[in-house]
């Protein structure tokens, strides 16, 4: 089961506690999370379901490159971090 950890910055807008998922790729993991926390979806994904421009997802320390279909595998017991890029002012 993968553990999903969200950036602290998002908590001000929508509460995203640590969560767990049996999903086997990034898409199914995030879908699991958003089923329980539907408000969080539009903060992480754009209208077409792709990662927002400045959202970065790491699976076991590796940056997810497939930002559109989110097909990258999430092995069991992975740690998935949903972070935001440090940009803007």
């Amino acid at each position, binding site marked *: 089961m993968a553990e999903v950890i969200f950036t602290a910055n998002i908590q001000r*807008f929508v509460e995203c506690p640590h969560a767990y998922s049996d999903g086997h790729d990034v898409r199914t993991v995030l879908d699991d999370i958003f089923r329980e926390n539907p408000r969080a979806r539009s*903060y992480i994904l*754009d*209208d*077409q379901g792709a990662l927002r421009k400045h*959202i970065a997802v790491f699976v076991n320390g590796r940056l997810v490159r497939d930002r559109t279909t989110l097909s990258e595998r999430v092995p069991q017991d992975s740690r998935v971090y949903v972070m935001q890029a440090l*940009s803007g002012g």
Partner: protein
Amino acid sequence: MSKRILVSIRKGLFTVERCGSGSWRIVNADFLGDNVSLAIACRRSGSRYAALDHGHFGVKMHRWDDDVWSEIATPAYPPKPEGLEELDMWGRPIPWSTVRIWALTQGGADQPGVLWCGTLPGGVFRSNDHGNSWLMCRSLWDHPKRTQWTGGGADLPGVHSICVDPRNSNHVSIAISTGGIWFTGVGGDNWRLHGEGMRAEYVPPDLAHDPLSQDVHCLAQCQAQPDVMWVQHHNGIFLSHDGGRNFKEITEVKPSAFGFPVVVHPLDGNTAWFVPEIKDERRIPVGGRLCVTRTRDGGKTFETLTRGLPQEHAYDIVYRHAFDISSSGEWLVMGLTTGGLWISENEGDDWIEVTHTLPPVYATRFA
């Protein structure tokens, strides 16, 4: 007459209230630290709506009822058909996603739950339930000419002005930077291009009078004389007397015909105000002197109004949504990119500084 103004800025939504003749002060700050791109108040319901741009986390809409802000639905683009390739003017895929909320307008008096929303990259949305849900106007988004719209104020085309005809709430005109003026006579179910007579200097000569090529910076409709519509255009000032179908150019405007906002007197279509800038390669007030221009005769003549405004080393811009007029036409408010907020209580003759320490002001609206 409203004595309250909503001021949308880079770092929050500020409420300014009149506390006596010529005296206004900031009384509240909501969403402090967040980017508020546009907020409006609905006169009938008392509700307020605010569009926030959280950057990393996207655009969000909030509604204020009974002293509380709540997040509501944000206009969302429909699924992009698989395999569809649409490229913008730079050769990049056009996003089917709300990038910015650039226009918010309440529906007509007989449509109390209706809101209209204009966005980047060009979608127009209608809500029939006070913003709880939104429907995209697909007939406009699917119009074959839509992909010819281009970026103007931003990389992507955006709908910045929405005017609901007070005589018929289903008659709605919108303006796009850059894509001209479009009109629906059936509440958004179909749209046609308006705006003959405008002129674009920034395209090849054979396209200069194409209504689709026009970079309208702001479109304003007179409430008492809705056939009168004013345009502040990238090339200057244009005036229509037939509800936006045809425009004539107003020339010989001093100190400049370039600018972003326009407001028209709600009761008198011949009276309108502008904030001139040196066109367009510099975009600063002429001579470093901030001024407002006013015509009272339908553009035949203009007065330059400066009393109270800084007349040296002023390099402010007033964005297209940062200029507003009260329902009586007596009070004006403008917010500046340099953080100033100015109010006139006598139709622009004299200006009062409320503050000069805000972050850039995106929008001002009497509430």
